[in-house]
């Protein structure tokens, strides 16, 4: 199977290279209108077909690797290092992306799959799709070159073949790890499509904004995958790493967040281009940047440029990525300089207080946030290079720098939709903002009364201060969005005589993009409320003998048993804890610590009981070597469930925004 896989990869590279060269020559011939023996259109079609065949070849290679994992073919180094016989089936499948070679193969396969769909639908706009197809082929040539020459997944073991493999990293043996990386990769790779269309449209001086309409669905689906991937990663970190948090500003977490920020900015600013023909250069550069950031993310994750707890696979492929990113940047700059006259805006922003300017500021803040994260991620390297002194840029720095920018972004989320296009009057501003402003101050007062005060023990408490601002702004933004829904539904209710709920459904169906977007904003608000809850996290740690008790918040935990267990994959130690409230037993929790046999690495299995107000989060930290008693750490994390609920709403809103709007039925008299 190793020979089959290697051969499939070589064939795939040859086909991608043909796709790139033949496609580029055909497009050049078409652009210069040169006459040749073979018609350029036929040449371009052979290139397209080579791309489709290339996808089949990459699929064969991916299949070969998965087959080798399931058949325990330890003659392949990759399988030896990332699997073992006792590994459960689902995790054997996830071995495909647990190492560098496999994850690069997954990237190439996903890119092939996206390109396959693109090439099948090429009749929508043959020429533009041909340009995009060639650019996708160029990206594929890079990945397949890396797979063939720098990180071959089918490299064979030297010497005697061991009976069993080294096993999968224990941190990856968790259900979410079966779907989190593919989601993230679907997001990363997916941004290649709008990038290819944007660059292609720029190269061919594509008239109008149709390329944006074509790529809108791609961009939104990609953005959704990336969003889900990031949040699944957060949930995995929360449930597996056992430190009670979900986001540690780790370089690899940051690497996934940066393209999400620029991608979000792109999704907003393309609306300006679609509606007003504005920000054309800006949009092109936003998508160029987003694509480059996905590459940087892969570089950070895979090349060990910065130290990270998430960098599961590291090697020296960094140079390949740096060179590729340099080439991509040079092509982008060259194309932009050559064709920039094509990107002149049709209109300009007319007022500082308008929907257009709010989009501009929204973009500005998203990019500022991206810069902050990039700066924080790379500063240790910069500092070492400039002054020879390596420093740590951890959570305290990000909390002080990134949170204020995030809160400003939340503010704009509420303000933007309330502003009309072009310009507005003071009276209209007052009318639209009065309710959200009242909601903001009312929430602030209620929070202060409830004890969310920006000081603790006589000192300023930045966590509480940010939480107070976040809660107040969240309610204000929610009120602003709700008032938009009610205003629109009210108009429909008056026009049609239907009730408010039916009118609201009709309102959403008539403009799915706008109201789907509002649902996403409400989801973001709910996520922010959940994040702000972390300011009130509490924890307690104790060694617990049988029937020892521990109190946290309203709960009492009692140790009623501690035992060991084992199976072919791991040995485990766990504690049984009865949880009661006001003397009444509610439920039992079983925090666990595992030691995986193949890798001899430990792993925490956190016990979590989630209610809307908080999570009771219990960690089995190990046993005291002197007394043999389990050490238990319990956390009470307020509002964590809101984060996951917010993501569900973001998912729902994106799906709504993807559904085409229903056109209003013709009214009597033929008027719409």
């Amino acid at each position: 199977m190793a020979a089959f896989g290697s051969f499939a990869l070589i064939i795939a590279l040859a086909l991608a290279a043909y796709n790139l060269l033949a496609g580029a020559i055909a497009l050049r011939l078409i652009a210069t209108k040169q006459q040749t023996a073979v018609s350029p259109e036929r040449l371009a079609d052979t290139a397209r077909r080579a791309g489709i065949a290339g996808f089949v070849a990459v699929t064969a290679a991916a299949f070969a690797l998965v087959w080798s994992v399931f058949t325990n073919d330890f003659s392949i180094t990759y399988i030896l290092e990332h699997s073992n016989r006792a590994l459960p089936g689902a995790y054997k499948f996830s071995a495909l992306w647990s190492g560098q070679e496999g994850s690069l193969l997954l990237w190439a396969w996903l890119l092939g799959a996206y390109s396959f769909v693109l090439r099948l639908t090429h009749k929508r706009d043959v020429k533009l799709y041909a340009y995009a197809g060639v650019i996708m082929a160029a990206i594929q040539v890079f990945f397949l070159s890396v797979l063939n020459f720098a990180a071959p997944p089918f490299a064979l073991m030297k010497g005697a073949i061991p009976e069993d493999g080294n096993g999968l990293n224990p941190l990856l043996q968790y259900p979410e790890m079966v779907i989190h990386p593919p989601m993230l990769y679907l997001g990363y790779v997916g941004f290649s499509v709008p990038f290819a269309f944007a660059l292609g449209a720029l190269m061919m001086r594509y008239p109008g904004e149709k390329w944006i309409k074509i790529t809108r669905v791609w961009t939104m689906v990609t953005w959704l995958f990336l969003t889900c991937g990031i949040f699944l990663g957060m949930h995995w970190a929360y449930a597996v790493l056992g430190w009670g948090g979900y986001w540690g500003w780790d370089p690899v977490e940051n690497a996934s967040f940066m393209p999400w920020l620029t991608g979000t900015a792109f999704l907003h600013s393309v609306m300006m281009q679609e509606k007003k023909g504005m920000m054309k250069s800006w949009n092109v550069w936003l998508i160029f940047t987003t694509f480059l950031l996905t590459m940087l993310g892969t570089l950070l994750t895979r090349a060990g440029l910065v130290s990270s707890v998430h960098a599961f696979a590291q090697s020296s492929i960094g140079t390949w990525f740096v060179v590729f990113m340099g080439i991509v940047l040079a092509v982008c700059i060259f194309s932009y300089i050559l064709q920039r006259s094509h990107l002149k805006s049709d209109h300009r922003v007319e007022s500082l207080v308008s929907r257009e300017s709010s989009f501009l500021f929204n973009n500005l803040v998203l990019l500022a946030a991206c810069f902050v994260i990039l700066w924080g991620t790379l500063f240790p390297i910069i500092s070492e290079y400039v002054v020879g002194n390596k420093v740590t840029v951890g959570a305290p720095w990000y909390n002080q720098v990134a949170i204020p920018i995030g809160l400003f972004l939340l503010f704009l989320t509420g303000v933007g939709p309330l502003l009309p296009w072009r310009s507005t009057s003071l009276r209209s501003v007052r009318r639209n903002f009065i309710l959200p402003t009242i909601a903001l101050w009312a929430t602030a007062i209620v929070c202060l009364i409830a004890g969310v005060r920006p000081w603790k023990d006589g000192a300023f408490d930045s966590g509480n201060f940010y939480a107070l601002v976040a809660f107040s702004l969240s309610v204000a933004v929610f009120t602003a969005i709700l008032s938009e829904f009610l205003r629109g539904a009210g108009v429909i209710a008056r026009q049609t005589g239907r009730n408010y709920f039916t009118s609201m459904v009709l309102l959403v169906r008539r403009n799915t993009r706008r109201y789907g977007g509002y649902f996403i904003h409400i989801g973001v608000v709910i996520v922010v409320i959940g994040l702000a809850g972390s300011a009130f996290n509490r924890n307690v740690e104790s060694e617990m003998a049988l029937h020892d008790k521990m109190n946290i918040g309203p709960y009492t935990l009692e140790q009623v048993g501690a035992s060991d267990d084992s199976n072919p994959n791991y040995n485990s130690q766990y504690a049984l804890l009865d949880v009661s409230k006001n003397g009444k037993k509610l439920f039992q929790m079983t925090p666990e610590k595992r030691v995986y046999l193949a890798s001899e690495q430990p792993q925490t299995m956190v016990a979590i009981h989630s209610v809307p107000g908080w999570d009771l989060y219990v960690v089995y930290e190990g046993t005291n070597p002197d007394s043999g008693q389990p050490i238990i750490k319990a956390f009470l994390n307020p509002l964590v469930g809101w984060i996951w609920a917010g993501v569900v709403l973001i998912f729902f809103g994106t799906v709504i925004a993807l559904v085409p709007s229903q056109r209003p039925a013709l009214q009597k008299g033929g008027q719409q």
Partner: protein
Amino acid sequence: MKARGALTFWLRTLQAGALAVAICFTLGASDAGSRYNDLNHRLMCTCGCAQLLGECNHVGCPESPRELKELKAGIAAGASDKEILAAFSAKYGATVLAAPTTQGFDLVAWIAPFAVFAAALLGTILLIRRWSVGKTQAAAQTNDPATEALREKIRRETGSDGGF
């Protein structure tokens, strides 16, 4: 007059808000318990787990218990936050601090994000203002001579130069 009154009111409200925030920031020092908690979240565990000292969750971690003990001893000895952080930095290297300091090149880490953000914000505001002024001027230039003559007549008769 009404507009000026409203402006004064908003300025005073802003001033009061800024004062309240400033008071919050400058309130007195905290007790030893919260200092300990604050400081162990400003230091890293040096075992290589890449976690904050206060959040290191490894039972049997070879480093964090010793570091926490040193931190407690420093607080008990009456050392200031600055002195404790400097002692840790001298002993374990600058990477033990969870965030860059505010001295030397480290200061750039703190300044750059806000400087870039402020510059971008200012640049955007100026750009929009330039566009909106350009639009107004363009609109004014396209007025026909009759409108311009009428405008000049109004200006002459009211003695106004176009201001409020």
